[in-house]
C-alpha cells in the first residue's frame, strides 16, 4: 500500500510539489498574522507599561494581597500559603517581594522620670520584610533581636522622627487608653536608627509605602510577633504581601491567564495588580487589531484556496485514467478517495510543521520593513511561535485538505462507463455561471458600498475617532467581493467579446488570427479556471498594494495635519524656583514627575531666544511664528463661547509652510490667507460658530489667567478645517444614528487671527515656531544646531 502511494506521488511529482508549496505558504501566512499581532501587541504593551510607570510613578508589576482585621493565626496561615497559592499563580518572574504588617494604633510617649505633662502621639507599628535592602541609615543602626530584653529596638523614618518627636537612643513607652483615666502599658521601645529611602523610584516604596511610615515605628518581624502575643494589649491590624514581578516577561500567552487568575483570587482576598487595567484595555484592542488583520489577508486566502482547487483538479485529471482502471478492478469509491485523503494528509502534515517556521521569517521581514516594503533598521520584534500559532496552522491545514479533496471526491464518484461517456460529451456550464453567481456577488458588493458610504456619513456627524476606522474591514471585504464578481463576469462575457472582434473583421482576418479567434471563443473549462486564477491574483495584488498605500498615506496625512509643520518649537525656557532638586535658572524640559513628586515647582520667568537666530538656521525651507492658545473666550453678538482655540498666524508665511490638503476647504487655503492679509483685524471662525456669528460681525477674544489678553476682530470667513485643528477632540463617542438626533455633541471651536495684529496689541505673547525642513535634511541636523 505504501509503495503504491509512493509510486502515485512520484507519478505526479511536479504537481505535488506545487501543491505542497501552496499549502506551506497558506500555513505560513495564517501563522504569520497572529504571530505578528502578538509581537506588536507585546511590544506596545510593554511600552505602555513603561509609560505608565513614568506617568504614575507606580511600578506596573506590583502585586499585592491585603488582609485587614483578621486574627494573628489567620495571618500566619495565609502567610504560609501566600507564595504557593497566590503569588506563584502569576506566571511572571519575581524580582522582589515584601510583606508589611501594621498593628493597631497606640499612644507613644517618651519615658521620663518626671511626670510633666507630655503630649502623646498616636502611632502604630509597621514591619517590612527585606526593608534593610531598601533604606539607607542616616543615624544609628538596624534593630537587633534580643528577646530577653523587654525593650524592643525600632527604627523610624526621618519624617516619623520629626512627626512623632522621637529621639535617637531614647526609650519610649507604648500605651493604650483603656478608659478615661486608665492607660495600660503595652511595651517599651528604643529608637536605634533613623533612615530614609535608598532609592525613591524603587518599586518597593509603591503604594504609598514610604508615606505610610511618616507616623509609624518600624520593628523587626519577629518582634512584632512577640509584641502582639497578647491580643488585649496590641493586635495586628493588617497584613499586606507584595510581590514585584518583572513585567518585561509579559507575553501574549500568559496575559489572559494572569487576568483570570487575578479575578479568581479577588473572590477570596483583596488582590491588586498594577498593570491589570492597562492590560485589559489592551486585550480588547488586540482583538480589534486581530480581526482587521484577518480581513486584510482575506484576498490572499481566497487565492490560495483557488490555487489549491486548481492544482488538485489537475492532479485528479491526470489520475482519471488510473481511477477508471481501479474502478474496473472493483475498487470502491471510498477506497480510491481514501488514497487521496492520505496524499492530502501527508502534504497537510508537512505544511503544518514547516508553515509556522516560514511564517516566523516572514514576520521578521515584515517587522523590519516600512509601509513601502523597504527594509529599515528598527529594533526587532519579539516574534515567537506558540501553541496558539499551531492551532491556526492546523486550521489552515484542515481547510487545505478540504479543498484538495473536492475535485478528488467528484472524480471518484464516476464509474468507468460514465467516464468514457463523459469524455465525449460537450462541456456544460460551470456551476457559477448557471446560478449567475457573478452577478450576485457584484450586487452584494455594490450594496455593501452604498451601506458603507451611508455609515461613513453617520460617523462623520458623530465624530468618532478615526483611529479604529482607518482600515475599515467592511470596505475591504466589499472590495474583495467586487474583484471576484468582476472577474467572473469578465469570464462570462469574454467569449462574446472575442466573438465581436471576430465578427467585425470576419472577412478580413488572416488565417492565423481567424483560427485563434475562433478557438479562443471556446474556452475549455480548465483554461477558464486558470484565467480566473490569474485575474484574481493580479487584481488582489494591485488592490492590496493600493490599499496599503492609501492607509499609509492617510496615516501620514493625519500626523502632518495635526502637527502642522515639520518641526514645531516652543522657544522658551522654564525657570523653576524653590526646589532642592534643581538649581535655579536652568533650562528644564517639562518636569519629570519621578524627580519632583513631592515638590511643586514655581514657574516664574521665561527666557526667550530671539526669533532671528532661528531664522538663520541651516537647512530650513521656511519658518514662521504661530501663536496657539487652547482656552479662550469669544464674546460677541451677545454670545459667550468658552474653550475656543486661537491661532495667530503670519498669513503669507503660513500658507507656504503649513501642510494642508487642498480638498479640505471649498477654496484653496491661499485665498483665505489673502483675506486675512487684506484686513489686519480679520478672523476666520470654525464652521460650528457659523450659527452664532455672521460675516462682518465683531467679536472679542479673551484668554489668560485673569483674562488680561483681549483682542477685537471682525469675522471674515468660516472654515471647516485648518492645520492642527481637530473639531472633534472627544474620542470616546459611540456612533449610533439614533443618538445623533437631538443630542448636541461637544465640538471644539477655532478662531484664526493675524499674528502681527496680536503682537502689536500684546507685545509679550509667547508663540511657537514652525519650521519646514529642506528636502533631505534630517531632524538631527536641525536639532544639533539648536
Amino acid at each position: 500500500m505504501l509503495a503504491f502511494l509512493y509510486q502515485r506521488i512520484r507519478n505526479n511529482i511536479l504537481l505535488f510539489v506545487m501543491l505542497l508549496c501552496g499549502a506551506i505558504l497558506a500555513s505560513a501566512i495564517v501563522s504569520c498574522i497572529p504571530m505578528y499581532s502578538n509581537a506588536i501587541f507585546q511590544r506596545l504593551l510593554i511600552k505602555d507599561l513603561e509609560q505608565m510607570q513614568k506617568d504614575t510613578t507606580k511600578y506596573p508589576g506590583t502585586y499585592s494581597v491585603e488582609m485587614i482585621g483578621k486574627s494573628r493565626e489567620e495571618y500566619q496561615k495565609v502567610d504560609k500559603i501566600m507564595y504557593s497559592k497566590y503569588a506563584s499563580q502569576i506566571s511572571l518572574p519575581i524580582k522582589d517581594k515584601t510583606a508589611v504588617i501594621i498593628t493597631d494604633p497606640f499612644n507613644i510617649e517618651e519615658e521620663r522620670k518626671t511626670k510633666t505633662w507630655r503630649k502623646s502621639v498616636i502611632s502604630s507599628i509597621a514591619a517590612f520584610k527585606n526593608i534593610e535592602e531598601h533604606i539607607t541609615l542616616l543615624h544609628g543602626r538596624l534593630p537587633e533581636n534580643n528577646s530577653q530584653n523587654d525593650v524592643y529596638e525600632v527604627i523610624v523614618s526621618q519624617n516619623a522622627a520629626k512627626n512623632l518627636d522621637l529621639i535617637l537612643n531614647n526609650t519610649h513607652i507604648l500605651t493604650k487608653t483603656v478608659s478615661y483615666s486608665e492607660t495600660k502599658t503595652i511595651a517599651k521601645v528604643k529608637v536605634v536608627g533613623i533612615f530614609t529611602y535608598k532609592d525613591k523610584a524603587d518599586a518597593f516604596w509603591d503604594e504609598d509605602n514610604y508615606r505610610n511610615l511618616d507616623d509609624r515605628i518600624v520593628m523587626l518581624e519577629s518582634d512584632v510577633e512577640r509584641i502582639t502575643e497578647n491580643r488585649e494589649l496590641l493586635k495586628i491590624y493588617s497584613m499586606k504581601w507584595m510581590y514585584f514581578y518583572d513585567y518585561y516577561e509579559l507575553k501574549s500567552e500568559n496575559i489572559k491567564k494572569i487576568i483570570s487568575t487575578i479575578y479568581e483570587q479577588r473572590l477570596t482576598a483583596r488582590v491588586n495588580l498594577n498593570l491589570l487595567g492597562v492590560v485589559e484595555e489592551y486585550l480588547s484592542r488586540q482583538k480589534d487589531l486581530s480581526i482587521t488583520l484577518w480581513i486584510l489577508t482575506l484576498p490572499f486566502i481566497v487565492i490560495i484556496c483557488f490555487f489549491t482547487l486548481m492544482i488538485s483538479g489537475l492532479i485528479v485529471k491526470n489520475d482519471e485514467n488510473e481511477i477508471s482502471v481501479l474502478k474496473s478492478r472493483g475498487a470502491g469509491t471510498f477506497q480510491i478517495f481514501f488514497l487521496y485523503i492520505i496524499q492530502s494528509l501527508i502534504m497537510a502534515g508537512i505544511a503544518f510543521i514547516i508553515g509556522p517556521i516560514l511564517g516566523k521569517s516572514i514576520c521578521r521581514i515584515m517587522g523590519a520593513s516600512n509601509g513601502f516594503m523597504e527594509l529599515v533598521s528598527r529594533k526587532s520584534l519579539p516574534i515567537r511561535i506558540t501553541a496558539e500559532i499551531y492551532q491556526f496552522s492546523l486550521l489552515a491545514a484542515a481547510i487545505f485538505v478540504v479543498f484538495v479533496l473536492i475535485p478528488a471526491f467528484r472524480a471518484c464518484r464516476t464509474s468507468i462507463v460514465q467516464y468514457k461517456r463523459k469524455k465525449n460529451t460537450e462541456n456544460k456550464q460551470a456551476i457559477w455561471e448557471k446560478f449567475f453567481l457573478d452577478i450576485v456577488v457584484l450586487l452584494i458588493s455594490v450594496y455593501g458600498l452604498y451601506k458603507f458610504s451611508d455609515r461613513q456619513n453617520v460617523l462623520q456627524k458623530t465624530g468618532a475617532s478615526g483611529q479604529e476606522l482607518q482600515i475599515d474591514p467592511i470596505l475591504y471585504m466589499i472590495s474583495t467581493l467586487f474583484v471576484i464578481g468582476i472577474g467572473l463576469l469578465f469570464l462570462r462575457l469574454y467569449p462574446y467579446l472575442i466573438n465581436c472582434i471576430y465578427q467585425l473583421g470576419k472577412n478580413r482576418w488572416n488565417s492565423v488570427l481567424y483560427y485563434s479567434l475562433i478557438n479562443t471563443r471556446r474556452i475549455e473549462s480548465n483554461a477558464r479556471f486558470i484565467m480566473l486564477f490569474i485575474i484574481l491574483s493580479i487584481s488582489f495584488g494591485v488592490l492590496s498594494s493600493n490599499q496599503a498605500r492609501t492607509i499609509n498615506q492617510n496615516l501620514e496625512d493625519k500626523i502632518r495635519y495635526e502637527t502642522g509643520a515639520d518641526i514645531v518649537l516652543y522657544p522658551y525656557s522654564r525657570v523653576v524656583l524653590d526646589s532642592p532638586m534643581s538649581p535655579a535658572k536652568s533650562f528644564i524640559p517639562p518636569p519629570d514627575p519621578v524627580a519632583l513628586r513631592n515638590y511643586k515647582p514655581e514657574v516664574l520667568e521665561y527666557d526667550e531666544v530671539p526669533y532671528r537666530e532661528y531664522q538663520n538656521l541651516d537647512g530650513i525651507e521656511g519658518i514662521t511664528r504661530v501663536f496657539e492658545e487652547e482656552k479662550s473666550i469669544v464674546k460677541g453678538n451677545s454670545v459667550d463661547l468658552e474653550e475656543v482655540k486661537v491661532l495667530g498666524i503670519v498669513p503669507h508665511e503660513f500658507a507656504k509652510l503649513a501642510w494642508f490638503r487642498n480638498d479640505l476647504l471649498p477654496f484653496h487655503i491661499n485665498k483665505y490667507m489673502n483675506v486675512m492679509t487684506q484686513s489686519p483685524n480679520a478672523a476666520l471662525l470654525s464652521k460650528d460658530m457659523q450659527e452664532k456669528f455672521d460675516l462682518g460681525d465683531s467679536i472679542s477674544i479673551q484668554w489668560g489667567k485673569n483674562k488680561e489678553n483681549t483682542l477685537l476682530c471682525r469675522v471674515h470667513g468660516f472654515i471647516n478645517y485648518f492645520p492642527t485643528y481637530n473639531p472633534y477632540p472627544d474620542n470616546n463617542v459611540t456612533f449610533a444614528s439614533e443618538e445623533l438626533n437631538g443630542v448636541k455633541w461637544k465640538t471644539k471651536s477655532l478662531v484664526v487671527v493675524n499674528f502681527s495684529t496680536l503682537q502689536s496689541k500684546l507685545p509679550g505673547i509667547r508663540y511657537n515656531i514652525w519650521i519646514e525642513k529642506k528636502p533631505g535634511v534630517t531632524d538631527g541636523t536641525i536639532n544639533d544646531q539648536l
Partner: protein
Amino acid sequence: MADNKNLVVECDNLVKIYKAKDLEVVALQGLDLSVEKGELTAIIGKSGSGKSTLLNIIAGLERPSAGKVFVDGKDLLKFTDKELKEFNRSSIGFVWQNTARNIIPYLTAQQNVEVPMMITGHKSRSAWAKELLQMVGLGNKRNSRLGELSGGEQQRVAIAISLANSPRLVLADEPTGSVDGRTAHNILEVFSRLNKELGITVVIVTHDMRISKMVNRVISISDGMIGSELFKTDCLSHNIDNSDIQSFISKTHDEFAIVDRKGRMRIPEELMTKMNIKGGQKLTIHENDRGFEVFVDSLSK
C-alpha cells in the same frame, strides 16, 4: 433452466437502452445466452451490435434495463450496488482491449497484479502475483513497467491481473485487437491453457478470426440479439481463406441458427439473400419424416 448448476452465465431476454443527449439507443433487444462451466467461448459481431454492453452487464459493471441475468447462480438484479461491486471484484476477471485500461503505467507488472488484491484486502500478495505472472509466461518480467513491455506482454500482464482474485469467470473485450498475428496467437494460447488447466470459464469478445481455431463455440450477435452459433467441426480443411471471417469460420465450424426462448429465430443474411426473402415474408413449417422443414411461400409477395 436445465443444467442450472453447470451454467456460469445465464441471460434471459436482456434489454439495455442508453439515453445519450436526445437520442435513445437500444443496445440489447431481448438477448438470451447461456455459457457452461469450463467453456471457452467467443462472441463475434459487427461494431454496434452490443457485444461490449453484454460483457459489461455480465461483469456487473452495468445494469440491464430489462431481463434477467444470472452469473455463477447469482441473480445480479437482486444485488445492491455495493454487492454488485463486491461480486465484480471477487468473481469476475476483466481484460480490456486498450492496455491503458488494464495497467497502471508507473507500477511494475507485479505491482499491477497486486492492485486487485489490495482492493479486496488480501494479505500475502506477492507470492500469488509471482505465480500468476509465471503462468502467463512473464516470470522474468515482473519488475518491468508498462513502457518496457511489448504489446503482447502487456496483454499477458492484463490477463494475469484479471486472475488476481481467482475469479470464476474471465471476460475479455477484444484482447487481441491491437497486436499482430504471432502475438495474438500467444495471447490466445494463454487463454486456452488457463481454460484447460485451471478450468476457468472464458468468454472473449472479438473480431479476430484466429480465435476460432482455438475456440469450440462461437456466438454471433447482431442488433442486440443472438443471431447464430457456430460449433467446431471435427474435420478441418487446410485451404483457409483468411479474408472473410464468416466464410473462414464456415469452413471450420458448423453454423446453427438459434431459437430463443420465445421462439424467435434469426436467419443469417447470406441465407436471406440466397432464399430471396425480405422482411414480412411468410414462411410455412411442414412436418415430414425427417423432421421439420421450413418452406418459403413463393407465391406470396
